[in-house]
């Protein structure tokens, strides 16, 4: 009950005219970012972050999180109308969304996509409202070993649940940790890994990495694929909207399943992209029309969109309650918290009530604003994609450079951004995952601190990580995740042997 009161207080914080205006700006910017190739939730927010330094933190996070909602909505527009996923999590939406558009049912597909995104987000926000304060209260008792075990579990889940080859996930993650270690060691004050190059003393800022890896890298990839945008016309009128809404309740089971998949993969760092694929797969297997999936089934649009939005939203739960982001975009928002002088973690719910509940309230409001904006302005946003790539590409490069520079006002950062861009392109092509790299870069210092403090507590005895059921359980689960790919290979091996024996 206390939390409900806090939530209403949050609505009071979020519902000022200035914040509402920021919400509208945020969602519109977000949709544009989601529609444009090379700009996505993570790097879009990273680029705009410096512009919010002068705002009050609550207004700033409201605007930035609304950009995120907008980007989640925007991905669906390009998938359905142009068969080009604007964001990785909307790849699965193209499977049935584009065929529907080809059959002249674009309006229906878009309405279904937006509405189910909204439903997914709403379910996730409700979950955050009730679960996040509990998790935070629980985590208040955490000491360094507990925090390290949470970090350990987070990073091992990447290996256990990632689609990429496990060793590549591991290598990418370690690269992130190594980059995070560069610069001044916070404990001893020694310079690490700079090899006499004093400009590196500040270390690698993950915002630069995000802008380079996701922004420049994505542009290079789009260029290689030789994109030519030829889309379907986008028309949504109230009649189509209401007709589609009338059909949606029929698919409540699909929606519910997708919400669960999304929330689960959002809290554990699976992220929106695997969530959308998994939800599509589950819907295809369990639907009566499963065989017809891929030919323009409404369910095939509902499932991935619901899951992607549920995952994208619930990725904020561990970020708010534990200070551990569940996705690169959540990591960027976490970086914002640090810059505004807020310490992410369980204490946030105690010390910064206005901020936390204002943000949670703005999640409700932002998604409503998002739904209204996308339903009314689709043709406008689709028109952006008709601007030729040879105009868009250089402008995005310029925007990325500005974003990289404004983080620290350092010219070196622009060069680093370019370097990260090339790395991002090569990594993407070779199936090295970028999310663990970014998260390791963000959390590296804090994971290291937690580890060192635990070691100090135990005088270097690793058994401290198994000293009580909570730490031991999480470490055990982490180890299980770490070894999970081996089980998979073992099963494969057994199956092959069986097949050979037959």
């Amino acid at each position, binding site marked *: 009950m206390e939390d409900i009161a806090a939530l209403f207080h949050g609505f009071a914080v979020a519902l000022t005219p200035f914040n509402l205006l920021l919400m509208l700006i945020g969602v519109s910017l977000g949709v544009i970012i989601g529609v444009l190739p090379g700009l996505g939730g993570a790097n879009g927010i990273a680029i705009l972050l410096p512009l919010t330094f002068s705002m009050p933190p609550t207004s700033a996070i409201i605007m930035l999180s609304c950009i995120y909602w907008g980007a989640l909505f925007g991905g669906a527009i390009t998938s359905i109308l142009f068969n080009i996923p604007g964001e990785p999590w909307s790849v699965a939406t193209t499977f049935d969304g584009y065929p529907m558009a080809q059959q002249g049912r674009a309006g229906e597909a878009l309405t279904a996509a937006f509405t189910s995104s909204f439903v997914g987000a709403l379910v996730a926000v409700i979950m955050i409202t009730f679960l996040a304060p509990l998790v935070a209260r629980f985590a208040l008792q955490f000491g360094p070993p507990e925090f390290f075990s949470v970090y350990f579990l987070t990073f091992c889940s990447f290996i256990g649940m990632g689609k990429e080859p496990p060793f590549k996930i*591991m290598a990418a993650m370690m690269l992130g940790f190594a980059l995070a*270690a560069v610069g001044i060691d916070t404990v001893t004050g020694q310079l690490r890994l700079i090899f006499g190059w004093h400009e590196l003393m500040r270390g690698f800022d993950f915002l630069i990495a995000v802008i380079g890896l996701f922004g420049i890298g994505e542009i290079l990839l789009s*260029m290689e694929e030789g994109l030519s945008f030829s889309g379907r016309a986008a028309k949504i009128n109230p009649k189509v909207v209401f007709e589609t809404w009338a059909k949606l309740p029929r698919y409540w089971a699909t929606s519910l399943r997708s919400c669960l998949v999304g929330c689960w993969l959002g809290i554990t760092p699976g992220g929106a992209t695997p969530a959308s694929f998994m939800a599509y797969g589950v819907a295809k297997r369990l639907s009566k029309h499963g065989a017809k999936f891929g030919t323009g089934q409404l369910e095939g649009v509902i499932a991935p969109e619901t899951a992607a939005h549920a995952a994208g939203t619930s990725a904020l739960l561990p970020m708010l309650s534990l200070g551990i982001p569940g996705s690169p975009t959540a990591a960027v928002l976490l970086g914002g918290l640090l810059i505004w002088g807020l310490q992410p973690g369980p204490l946030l719910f105690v010390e910064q009530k206005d901020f936390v509940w204002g943000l949670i309230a703005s999640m409700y409001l932002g998604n409503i604003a998002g739904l209204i904006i996308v339903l009314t302005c689709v043709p406008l946003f689709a028109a952006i994609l008709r601007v030729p790539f040879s105009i868009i590409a250089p402008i995005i490069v310029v925007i990325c450079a500005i974003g990289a520079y404004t983080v620290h006002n350092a010219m070196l950062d622009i060069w680093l951004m370019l370097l990260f861009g090339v790395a991002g392109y090569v990594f993407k092509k070779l199936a090295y995952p970028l999310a663990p790299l970014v998260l390791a870069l963000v959390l590296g210092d804090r994971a290291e601190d937690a580890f060192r403090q635990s070691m100090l507590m135990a005088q270097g005895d690793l058994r401290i990580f198994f000293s009580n059921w909570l730490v031991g359980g999480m470490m055990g689960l982490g180890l299980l995740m770490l070894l999970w790919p081996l089980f998979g290979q073992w099963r494969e091996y057994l199956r092959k042997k069986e097949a050979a024996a037959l």
Partner: protein
Amino acid sequence: MSESPEPSHQETGGFSTRGAEIAVAIVLFALGGLVVYDSHRLGSSWGSDGPEAGYFPFYIGLIMCFASAAIIGQTLLGRGAGRDAVFVQWQPLRQVLSVLIPAALFVLGIQLVGLYVAAAIHIAAFMRWLGNYSWLKSVVLGTVVSAAAFLTFEVWFQVPLYKGAFDPLSFLGY
């Protein structure tokens, strides 16, 4: 964006995925080695007052070497991506470079003449040579975008951007 299985156009050729795979893993191995080396130099064991500065990164470096060695091993044994897959064909590579090289020149330009001038030139040149737009259109759009950025950052948000070693816009007084 899932990777589409790349068609094996033998006649067009390109970098092999195997080569790229091994090259990247070697770079990662070398970086891991560098981390191990520097952490060892700083001290990677238990000091008088607790863990030394290189304690944590030392193991990070070790794991990085281990993982990249495993990737090299898997690639050589022919597992993972198909043996003869093409990493990037020459034609798409040229397109990638047609963005990357101007972008690099643009960054160099920022270093010399500042962000605004470099941005205007970059956009105009890109449109003119890669988009085949007329000179007039290209120059106008480049200037407009650059001016809009100037107004947004210098005037409204008062976030100064890099002016370059020569600062050709110093007469504006920002």
